[in-house]
C-alpha cells in the first residue's frame, strides 16, 4: 500500500510538471497551424511567382515543426570539441604517467598517451579548420579570440609532437631518454589549455 501511495504521488508530481508544458505545446501548435494556413503561405506564393524563383524547394522542404529542435548529438562542432578535450586529457595523462625505469618504453602509458595527444590534437586542428573556416579573418588580428584559439591549438599540437619526437631522438641517438623533452610537452599542454579556454 505504502509503495502504491508513493508511486501515485510520484506520478501526480510528474503529471503536475508535465501538464503546463503539454498545454503550452498544444497552444504552440495551435498558433502555428493558424500561421501556416493563413495569409503567409499565400503571400509567399505570390512573392515566389513574382520573382520567378524555382518553386521546387518548397515541395522538397522537410516540414519540421518549430518545437522539434533537438541539438544533433554529433556535429562538426562538437566533434572538434571532443577531439581537443581528448588531446588535452591525453597530454595530462602523459604528464602524470612518467615511467620510473626505461625498459620497454614503447609500451608505457606515458608514450602511448603522449603519442595519442599529438595525433588527437592534429585531428582537432584539422576538424577546426574545416568546420570553422568562416570564423577566421586575418584582418581581425592576432588578439581575436578565434584566431588566437587556432594559433594556440596548432602550437599546442606542435609542442606535443616535438616532445614525442625529442624523446624518440634521445632514445635513438643516446640510448636513453632525458627529461629535456618535458618542457615542450608542458608548453603544448599550456597552449592547448588556453586555446580551449578562449572559446569554451
Amino acid at each position, binding site marked *: 500500500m505504502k509503495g502504491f501511495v508513493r508511486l501515485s504521488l510520484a506520478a501526480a508530481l510528474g503529471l503536475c510538471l508535465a501538464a503546463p508544458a503539454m498545454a503550452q505545446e498544444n497552444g504552440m501548435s495551435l498558433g502555428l497551424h493558424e*500561421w501556416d494556413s493563413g495569409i503567409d503561405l499565400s503571400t509567399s506564393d505570390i512573392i*515566389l511567382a513574382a520573382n520567378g524563383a524555382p518553386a521546387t524547394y518548397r515541395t522538397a*522542404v522537410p*516540414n519540421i515543426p518549430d518545437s522539434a*529542435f533537438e541539438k544533433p548529438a554529433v556535429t562538426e562542432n562538437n566533434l572538434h570539441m571532443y577531439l581537443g578535450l581528448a588531446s588535452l586529457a591525453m597530454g595530462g595523462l602523459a604528464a602524470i604517467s612518467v615511467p620510473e625505469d626505461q625498459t620497454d618504453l614503447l609500451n608505457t602509458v606515458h608514450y602511448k598517451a603522449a603519442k595519442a595527444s599529438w595525433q588527437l590534437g592534429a585531428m582537432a586542428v584539422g576538424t577546426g579548420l574545416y568546420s570553422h573556416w568562416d570564423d577566421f579573418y586575418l584582418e581581425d588580428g592576432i588578439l581575436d579570440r*578565434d584566431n588566437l584559439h587556432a594559433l594556440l591549438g596548432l602550437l599546442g599540437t606542435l609542442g606535443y609532437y616535438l616532445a614525442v619526437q625529442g624523446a624518440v631522438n634521445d632514445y635513438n641517438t643516446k640510448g636513453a631518454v632525458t627529461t629535456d623533452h618535458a618542457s615542450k610537452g608542458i608548453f603544448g599542454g599550456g597552449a592547448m589549455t588556453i586555446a580551449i579556454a578562449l572559446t*569554451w
Partner: protein
Amino acid sequence: MKKVLLFAVVMMFSGQALAEDFFSNLFRFKGVKPMTDKLYKDSCGECHFAYQAGLLPKRSWEKMMLADQLSDHFGEVADLEEEDRIAIRDMLVADAADTSIYKRSMKIDRSIPENATPLRITETPYIKKKHKEMTDKYVKFNPKVKSLINCNTCHREIEKGIFDDDTVLIPNFGYWSEIE
C-alpha cells in the same frame, strides 16, 4: 523516509534540467550573456525577440533608449514608463558588448567603427559577415523567418546566449549543419 523520497522525486524533476544548464554553461563565455530579467522581457519581448544587451555597444543602447527615440522606434511607438525606461537602459548599458567578456559580444564590438553608433543589430559588420550565406530564400521569402531581426526563429538556443551554427534550424529548410 517519506519526506526524503518526496524530496528526491521533486529534485529529480526540477533539478535535472537546472543542473544540465548549470554545468553546460559553467565558465562558458562563448556566446553573449543571457538575459532573464522579467521587466526586460515584458517590456521589449512583447513585440520582438528581447535582444541581449551584448549584441550592441553601450553608446547604441544609450541612444536607442532615449525617450524620443522610443517614440519612433524604427517606425513604431515603443514608449515606456519613465522608471522602466531608465531601469531597462541601465540594464542594457551594464551588459553592453563593449564591456563584455563574451566572445560574440567582443567580436561584434570590435567590428563596429569607433565613430559609428548602430541602432540595428543586423547592420553591425560582424553580424552582417556571419549571415552572408543567408540568402533571400532562407530569410526574406521564408514566411516563417521574413527578416534577420527574427533571430530566434532559427537560433534555437538563443535564450542561453548560444549562437553556434549547430543550434540553427531554419524553418521550412531544416538544420543548417545539414543544408550547408
